[in-house]
C-alpha cells in the first residue's frame, strides 16, 4: 500500500491537515523509551486522564482534576497501592458453593440401584434433579457476572479490578467447561488477591485451583497416563511463551502435575496418583512435583519477560505492531520491566508503579491509542460520564455481543484484544450500547425506566467548567472543545465544526437535551473507542 497522502480534488481534506499528516508520516517523532518519571510540571489534565483510563476505567472531570492536584507520585501510589483504599470484601452476595456438589453416598447407591433395576422413572427423576442443579448454577454464574460488572463500576480500587480482568484473560477459564460457578468465583478471588501482587504466588495458586484443574483436565491426569493439557499451557500461555520449552518439557511437566486434582471445592493432592519418578524438566533433573515445576518456570529468564509483555500490552500499547519506532521503544521498556520483575522476585507492584510514572507511558503517541475492551467501554462510560447503569443484564448481553463475556472467555488463549474487538458488527453494538446508557433507548423499544433515570448532564458541565476553565464561560465552542478533550482526549476542527453546527441549529444553547445529543454523537465517534 502506498503511504502517499491523499491527493484528490474530490477529497475534502484541508491542505494544512494533509501537509501535517505527510510530515508526521515522513518523519515520525520517535516514542521515548525512558522509564524515568515524568517531570512534575508535565502531569496535567491530559496525563491524569490517561492515567485514569489505563490504570482503571476512566474518571470524571473532578477525578481528573484531583489527580492533577495530587501530582504524579501520589496519584500513581494511590492507584497501585490500592490496599490503602478501603474496598468492599469480595463476597457480598454470599454465593452458594453447594449447587454443584458430588453425590452423597446415599445418592450414589440410589442411582446405582436404579440403573441396575432399569428403573426408568427413578433414573428420569435423577436426571431432572441434575438438570435443576445445572439451571440454578447457570443462574448463579449470571449473578456473578452482574456482581463483577457492578464491582468494576463501583470500586474505589479500579486497578484491582482492571488487573483481575487481565489475569482472567491470561489464566482463561470458562464456565462453559468448568460447569461449577463457585469454582469460577473462587478463581476470581485468587486472581484478585494477587492482581498487582506476586505473579509467583498466582502461578503457584493456579495449579491448585479447582476451576483450572477442571478446565485443563488435570483431574484426569495420573501416574502412567498423564494429561498434558495443564503442563503445556503452564508454559505456553501462562508462564513462558512459545519457543521457551520443548515437547519433552511438556511430557515431563505433565508427570510432575499428576495427582493434582480437587474434591468438591477443595484442591486435593492424590499421592497414589502422583508420579514421583525422576524428570528432566526445563534443564533440571529431579523427582519434581507441581510446585517444583512452577519454580523452574519462574527461574527461567523468559518468564519475567513474558509477564512484563502481558502487563505492557494491557496497560500501555499493542506489541508487536510491526511499526518502526513503536516496537523498538516498547521492546526496550518491556526489557526494563522484566529486569524489575526479576529483581523483585515477581512482585509486580513496583514495576507497575514505575511504568505508570514513566515518560514512555505518557508519550503522546501512546495516549488515546488503545482500543477499549467491551468491559472497558461499558464500565468506562458509567464511571467517567456517570451514565445510569440501567440494566446489568442488558449491559452484559451487550458486552457479549461485542465479544467479551466475562467468566466465558472463548478459549484458554483468552481474548485477543486490540483490533480483534472491532469489526463492522461490533462497532454498531458499541455505539448503540452508549445510546442505551445515555438515553435508555434499546435496539428495539425503550427501557421503561428510561425517563425515571435520565442521564444528567448538569454535573458533567459543572465539573468540566472546574477542570477546563476555558469552558466556564458557557460559550458553546469552548464547552464543546472541553467535552471533546475530556471524552476522546483530543479535539479536531472537523468534529468541533459538526458539533457546533448541531448546537447552532438547536437554538445555540447547551440545554441538557442538547448536551445529551452531543454525547450521543461523541460516543459514536471512532475515536471514542480509544483510550
Amino acid at each position, binding site marked *: *500500500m*502506498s*503511504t*502517499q497522502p*491523499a*491527493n*484528490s480534488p*474530490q*477529497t*475534502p*481534506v484541508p491542505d494544512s*491537515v*494533509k501537509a*501535517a*499528516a505527510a510530515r*508526521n*508520516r515522513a518523519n515520525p517523532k520517535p516514542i521515548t523509551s525512558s522509564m524515568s518519571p515524568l517531570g512534575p510540571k508535565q502531569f496535567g489534565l491530559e496525563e491524569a486522564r490517561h492515567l485514569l483510563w489505563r490504570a482503571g476505567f476512566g474518571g470524571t472531570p473532578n477525578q481528573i482534576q484531583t489527580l492533577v492536584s495530587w501530582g504524579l507520585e501520589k496519584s500513581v501510589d494511590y492507584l497501585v497501592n490500592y490496599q490503602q483504599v478501603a474496598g468492599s470484601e469480595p463476597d457480598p452476595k454470599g454465593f452458594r458453593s453447594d449447587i454443584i456438589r458430588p453425590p452423597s453416598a446415599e445418592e450414589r447407591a440410589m442411582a446405582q440401584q436404579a440403573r441396575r433395576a432399569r428403573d*426408568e422413572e427413578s*433414573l428420569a427423576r435423577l*436426571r431432572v434433579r441434575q438438570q435443576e442443579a*445445572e439451571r440454578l448454577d447457570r443462574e448463579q454464574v449470571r449473578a456473578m457476572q452482574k456482581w463483577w460488572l457492578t464491582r468494576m463500576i463501583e470500586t474505589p480500587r479500579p486497578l484491582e479490578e482492571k488487573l483481575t480482568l487481565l489475569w482472567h484473560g491470561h489464566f482463561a477459564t470458562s464456565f*462453559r*467447561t468448568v460447569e461449577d460457578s463457585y469454582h469460577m468465583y473462587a478463581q476470581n478471588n485468587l486472581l484478585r488477591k494477587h492482581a498487582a501482587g506476586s505473579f509467583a504466588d498466582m502461578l503457584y495458586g493456579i495449579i491448585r485451583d479447582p476451576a483450572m484443574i477442571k478446565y485443563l483436565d488435570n483431574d484426569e491426569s495420573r501416574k502412567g497416563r498423564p494429561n498434558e493439557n495443564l503442563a503445556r499451557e503452564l508454559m505456553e500461555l501462562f508462564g513462558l511463551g512459545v519457543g521457551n520449552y520443548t515437547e519433552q518439557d511438556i511430557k515431563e511437566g505433565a508427570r510432575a502435575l499428576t495427582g493434582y486434582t480437587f474434591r468438591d471445592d477443595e484442591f486435593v493432592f492424590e499421592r497414589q496418583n502422583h508420579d514421583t519418578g525422576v524428570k528432566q524438566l526445563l534443564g533440571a533433573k529431579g523427582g519434581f512435583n507441581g510446585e517444583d515445576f512452577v519454580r523452574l518456570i519462574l527461574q527461567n529468564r523468559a518468564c519475567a519477560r513474558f509477564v512484563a509483555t502481558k502487563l505492557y500490552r494491557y496497560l500501555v500499547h*499493542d506489541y508487536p*505492531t510491526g*511499526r518502526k519506532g513503536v516496537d523498538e521503544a516498547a521492546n526496550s521498556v518491556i526489557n526494563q520491566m522484566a529486569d524489575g520483575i526479576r529483581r523483585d522476585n515477581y512482585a509486580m507492584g513496583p514495576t507497575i508503579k514505575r511504568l505508570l510514572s514513566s515518560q514512555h507511558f505518557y508519550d503522546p503517541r501512546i495516549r*488515546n*491509542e*488503545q*482500543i477499549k475492551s467491551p468491559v472497558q467501554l461499558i464500565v468506562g462510560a458509567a464511571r467517567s460520564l456517570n451514565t445510569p447503569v440501567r440494566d446489568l443484564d442488558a449491559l452484559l*448481553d451487550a458486552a457479549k*455481543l461485542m465479544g467479551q463475556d466475562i467468566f466465558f472467555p*472463548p478459549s484458554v488463549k483468552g481474548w*485477543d484484544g486490540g483490533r480483534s474487538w*472491532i*469489526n*463492522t*458488527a*461490533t*462497532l*454498531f453494538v458499541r*455505539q*448503540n450500547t452508549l*445510546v442505551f446508557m445515555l438515553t435508555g*433507548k434499546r*435496539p428495539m423499544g425503550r427501557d421503561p425506566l428510561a425517563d425515571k433515570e435520565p442521564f444528567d448532564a448538569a454535573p458533567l458541565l459543572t465539573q468540566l467548567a472546574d477542570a477546563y476553565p476555558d469552558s466556564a464561560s458557557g460559550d458553546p465552542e469552548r464547552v464543546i472543545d472541553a467535552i471533546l478533550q475530556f471524552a476522546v482526549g483530543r479535539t479536531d476542527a*472537523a*468534529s468541533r465544526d459538526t458539533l457546533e*453546527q448541531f448546537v447552532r*441549529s*438547536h437554538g445555540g444553547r447547551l440545554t441538557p437535551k442538547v448536551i445529551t*445529543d452531543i454525547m*450521543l*454523537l461523541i460516543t*459514536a*465517534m*471512532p*475515536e471514542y*473507542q*480509544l483510550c
Partner: protein
Amino acid sequence: MNDRIPSAFTRRQFLTTGLTLASASLTIPAFLNSSAFGLPRNWWNGTSTPGAPDERILVVIQLGGGNDGLNTVVPYGEAAYYKARPAIGIPENKVVKLSKSPVGLHPALAPLADMYNDGQMSVVQGTGYPNPNRSHFKSMDIWHTADTTATGDGWLGKYFDAECCGFGKGEGGRPEPNPQAGIAIGREAPLAMKGRMVTPLAFESADLFRWTGGDVSRDLTPAYDQITRREAAGTGADPESNAAFLTRTALDAQVSSDTIRRAVAARPRSAYPQSELARQLQMVASMIHAKLSTRVYYVSMGGFDTHAGQGGEQGRHAQLLGQFAAAVKAFYADLKLQGNAERVMTMSFSEFGRRVGQNASNGTDHGTAAPMFLFGPMVKPGVLTQHPSLTDLDQGDLRYNTDFRSVYAGVLEQWMKADSKKILEGTFNPLGVLTKT
C-alpha cells in the same frame, strides 16, 4: 486520475458516485480493497474468486428445543412406533408417503412433498453423536462446535477461518477478511459461526444493523453521518494507528449497513407465509438477491421442546412443522424466481430428537438421534441413511447411525469445497449430499 492504478479508490467515492477512481488508497475499506485491486472481481456483483465457488451459499436452519424426529419423519410401517405412541402417533393414512422409503413425512410437512418429488430434498435419518447429551445447552453446543466436549470454536467459524474468511482461498497468499462472510438472523451470532478471524454479522432485522441514536432524535442523523463517514486521510491520523483503523472500520460499517438495509428493504418478489422463520428466510432471500458476498446464512426457530400436549397429526408440533415447511417452500420459490436456487443449499438440524415413547402428558422428553433435512436443486434426493431401529434401543432412546459431523463433512467437502478434516479437526466420512459435485 490514473485508472491504471486500480488501488486508487476511496470510500467516499463509493458512497457517493460508485465506482469512480481516485486516489487515497489507504482509506479503502478492507473488504472493498481487493475489489478495487481487481476491478473485474467486485463482490457486490457476485463475481467469484477463481478456484473457489463463491457463488455457493449455505443456509442453516436451527430448530431449537429438540425436534421430535419420529413424528417428523414417521416410520409408519412399524407396530413398535404406534405401540410407543398411542396418543400422539401419526395414523398411517395421514402420513405423506415418500417413494422408495419405508418412512413418510408428518402431514404438516405436505408443502415439502413437491420438493421431495422434484428431487430437491433429502432426509438424513438417525443423525447424532456418541454418548448423547440431553441438556439443550450442552447438546446445542456440541452441534455448534462439532465437538462432543462442546468446546472450541464453531464449525462454521472454523470454516471461515480456514477458507480465509469464506472469501476464497486468499489472494497473494494473504487472508482477506470478508466482514459479511456469515450473517445470522438473530440478536446474537450463534456459536457455530464464531471463529478466530471473523465475527459474523447478526441482527434480528436489518433495521437494527445501524446506529440507534437517530431514533432518539431524528435530526442527529446528518451530524452522525459526518462523524462516521470520514476518510481516515482527512483526520490527519497516522494511517497505521488504531485511530485510522477505527475511522476506516466506521466507514465500512456504514457501507455495510446501507447495503444490507437497502437489500432487505427491496420490494418482495414473491409471497411468504406469516411466521418468524418465513420472515427470516425472506430477509435471507433478499440479501442473496442483492448479491452480498455472504457464504453462510443462519436462521432459527424455537418451540420444539414439546414435553406436554405435543399433539399428533394436529396440535403444537404439527403447527411448528407446518410453519417450517411453508417457509422453506416459499424461500425456494423466491430463489427460483431470482434464478438463484441452484446456488443455495439449506440444511436443518435440531440439538436432539425425543424419546421413542410418549410421556404421561402426551408429550415427549429429550431423546437422541433425529433426522436432518437438506434442500436445494442439487442435493442428492431421497432418504439418504438408514432409519434407526425402534426395538434395539439404548435406555429407551434411538441409536444414531450417522454422525452429524459426516453430514457437515459432506456439505463442507462437496458443496463448499473446503477441507473438512482441517475444519472439523477429525476425519468424518463425508456423506454424499450432492447429485454431482
